[in-house]
Structures are given as structure tokens and as C-alpha cells.
């Protein structure tokens, strides 16, 4: 289940904007439209969205992200695929779990997510990931096997708190 790209989107001064995509393979003109597909009108933190756009398929998780000295911002983690053959439920589980874990460790920040995006991308290919966020903090995730417990709760399968 290898995505074409993973993206981090947030609300900027003018509107929604791309913070980072990895790998950076989506053309700029497509990206400017894509960002508005990932957080639909009226959506709120905690919502998921799946849609198609041109020949791309998107699944996103919308969440609240703390911002220094300002109110919390709205952001989304997005997996972009060029096929419909992927398990959207697993994507949702991974994204919501990553955000929840970072929040628990008080590490949820745009810079942190930017930093882990490449490792998260590699994790999608391998079916598991282990990301060292700081020298003392690591998160691990094993993807549920496709076709097996598709609707199960990934959090039940997780290693517990993973502070080194």
C-alpha cells in the first residue's frame, strides 16, 4: 500500500496551503486544487475525508494543531494514491494514531509532522514504521493486515507507550 505522496496541509493567512509533500511529485497546479479537496467545506477536527480528483485518490485526516502564541490551527494529513486499490481504513487509523500519539507526548507541531513525513511514507511501503521523534521519544506502528480485521481498532494492536 504505497501512496504516490503524503501531504501535510494547514490553514494559512489566505486559505488552505501545502506545508510539505513527500515525495514532492504532484504538479503545482494540481496541488493548488488538491489542498481544497483534503479539508471539505464545513469539516471539523477529527473528520476524515476521501475523494477522487483528476486521476488521484485522496484520504485525509483533519485535526487541530497547536500554534505558538496563536489559536490552534486546522490541518490535514493526506495520502495520495494513483489507484483505488488501497485500504482507506488503515490510512485513517495510521493518521489518527500518529496525531494522537504526538499529542499525548506534547509533540504535536507542524515542524514535527514535517520531519516525520518521509519516515511515515517509508512506513506505508513496509507496513510498519518506527519513528524517532526526539532522542527520548519514539513511536511505532504495525499496519493491520489487509482483509484481516479491516474494521478493527489499530490502537489495540499498538505497542504501548514507547518512550525509550
Amino acid at each position, binding site marked *: 500500500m504505497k501512496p504516490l505522496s503524503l501531504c501535510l496541509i494547514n*490553514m*494559512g493567512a*489566505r486559505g488552505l496551503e501545502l506545508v510539505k509533500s513527500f515525495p514532492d511529485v504532484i504538479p503545482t497546479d494540481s496541488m493548488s486544487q488538491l489542498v481544497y479537496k483534503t479539508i471539505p*467545506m464545513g469539516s471539523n*477536527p477529527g473528520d476524515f475525508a476521501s475523494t477522487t480528483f483528476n486521476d488521484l485518490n485522496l484520504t485525509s485526516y483533519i485535526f487541530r494543531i497547536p500554534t505558538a502564541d496563536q489559536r490552534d490551527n*486546522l490541518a490535514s494529513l493526506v495520502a495520495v494514491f494513483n489507484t483505488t486499490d488501497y485500504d482507506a481504513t488503515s490510512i485513517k487509523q495510521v493518521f489518527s494514531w500518529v496525531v494522537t500519539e504526538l499529542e499525548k507526548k506534547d509533540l504535536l507541531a507542524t515542524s514535527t509532522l514535517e520531519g516525520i513525513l518521509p519516515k511515515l511514507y517509508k512506513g506505508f511501503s513496509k507496513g510498519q514504521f518506527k519513528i524517532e521523534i526526539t532522542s527520548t521519544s519514539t513511536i511505532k506502528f504495525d499496519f493491520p493486515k489487509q482483509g484481516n480485521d479491516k474494521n478493527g481498532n489499530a490502537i489495540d494492536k499498538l505497542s504501548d507507550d514507547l518512550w525509550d
Partner: protein
Amino acid sequence: MSFLLNLFRSRTKHADITICGLDDAGKTTILKFLETGEFVETTPTMGVNRETLHLPNLQINVFDLAGQEDFRNMWHNINEKSDGIVFVIDRSNIMRFDEAKDVFEQTIHAQLDQDLIILILLNKSDESDVIEKSLFIEEFKLLDLPFKWAVFETSAKTGEGIFNAFKWFVDEFV
């Protein structure tokens, strides 16, 4: 039974209002204060929030519009169907005062309905270094407006002025 329902419905008026203003002015926080009676932390609005407030004899559909530049081009379509507009200004953000003035003028000049009611909220009154109400009225040329309007000083954090402001607004509809 249906007669009673119809009678009840006929006594309940409906109004559509929009809440506009620059991003981070406090529009959604004000709406949340109206709903819950307390300060609620919010995130930027994605396009539009729609909420319904049920008051005695009045049901208000509130369209809370995102203030970022990319969303402002959709304001007009929603505003032109509104019975009233609430325009929220962060009175502590002097740096964006001119931008707020431009957006206010564009919003008001796009209105065709002369019966439109406009409530202007000078929000974040709990902050220091805020623009004075009298100076604001002069700078925004409110005395030249061809609509019924009022300005209230509010704080969505403390609740200051919010209920008085909306009492005036609601009284205009009932």
C-alpha cells in the same frame, strides 16, 4: 393537531444571518459563546459553519463565514440571502485595521436589500491597546451607512457585551 402545528409555526419567525469579518476576529468564538454561554477554543473555519439558534418565537439560521482571503469571494452569495449581517472586528489588531475597513466596505456596498440590519462587534475588548468606539465609527464612516446598524464592544473570552449586542439584533427581527 396539524392546525396547532401550523399555528405554532406561524408564530415562529425565521431569520438568516451571516457572521463576517477577517480571519481570527473571533466570529466562531462569538457564535460558540451564544450557544454555550462560555468561552470555547476554536480553530479556523473551513468555509462556513451553519448553526441554528432557537429563541422564543424566533429561529435564527447563522452562517459563520471563514475570514481568510480565499473564502471571501463566497460571502456575497450567502450575504445577499441574509436578513442581517454581523461584522466582527478584532479591535486590538491595529495592523489589520485598514484591511478590515476595506473588507467591511466591500461587504456593505455589495448589499442591495435596504432593510438589511447590520450589527458590528468590536471584539477582543479584553485586550489592551484597542481602538476606541468613537474613532472606529468615524474611520469606518458608519454615519453614512444607508442601513440600520449598531456597534457593540464585545469579548468572546469574557462574554462582555455579547448578549446585549444580540438582544438588539434579535429585537430588530421580532
